[in-house]
């Protein structure tokens, strides 16, 4: 039988998530320029990790599940990184010699 998690851990996780939601929502009313996006993403990633660790029991599970969880996100990063590599360097072509 797998170990059963105490309910208070779940309640604490949910409260933390709601707090992070309140944080990202309120910060959105402050004009931080480019940092708005970075901050919003940072909070979203934290919330995702918290959900994965506690609600989805990644914490304390087999290493192969860690790999499967990370693999999807890693491959999405490959897709986004190399495609942005194309879009960001399009304007760099100097008129030639």
């Amino acid at each position, binding site marked *: *039988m*797998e170990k*059963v*998690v105490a*309910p208070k851990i*779940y*309640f604490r*996780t*949910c409260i933390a*998530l*709601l707090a992070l*939601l309140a944080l*990202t*929502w309120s910060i*959105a*009313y*402050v*004009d*931080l320029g480019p940092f*708005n*996006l970075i901050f*919003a*993403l940072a*909070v*979203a990633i934290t*919330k*995702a990790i918290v*959900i*994965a660790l*506690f*609600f*989805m029991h990644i914490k304390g*599970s*087999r290493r*192969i*599940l860690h790999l*499967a*969880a990370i*693999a*999807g*996100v890693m*491959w*999405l990063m490959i*897709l*986004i990184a190399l*495609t*942005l590599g194309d*879009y*960001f360097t399009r304007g760099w072509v100097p008129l030639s010699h």
Partner: protein
Amino acid sequence: MSILTSQVSDRPAFVAEQFDDIDQQRDAAKLGMWIFLATEVLFFGGLFLAYTIYRFTYGHVFVDASRRLDVVLGGTNTAVLLVSSLLMALGVRAAQLDHRRLLVRLLLGTAFLGCVFMSIKAVEYHNDFVEHLVPGAHFEWKGPDPHNAELFFWIYFAMTGLHAIHVTVGIGILLVLALLAWRGKFSGGNYSQIEITGLYWHFIDIVWVFLFPLLYLVGHR
């Protein structure tokens, strides 16, 4: 000479015959589900890529368009899904401990919050429809660059629509499981299906955790 393992005969009924024991079956089910969730990440990923590129290309129109979305409804929806994830996690725990009636109530509670999410979403879509923000023939945009604003709303409806379909499927599964749990199918350690549905539901929650800031909080409000 190699020794041969005797056929395992004293295992519970619900262990499928290709598995040797319950742990192997449960591990296989979890690994299979996590691999499926990786495919879902990439399935939504195509839309996240389109969002990323067009946000960097048409940043300003995205900010104006995002301000037209109702952040109050979006925020409450996020809270609704987070709480539904809590109920789902407690449900999985109840299944592990074989508390049948608690399990049924928690599954129904999660499904109910899912319906609340969908109804808030319906209200939002209705408001957008009334304000002529649905891309297509009667899209209206008074600010600069109506075409790129239409692009933002197309991505908005594509992402939230795909997510809504997943939530609807999730609700359907939860109701079926609640019925089966009521009939006592998940007693005696056979809670693998509940756990799998829990993983799926938490995944839907994670997707919305990303959708909310990226769509509703583009730039500052």
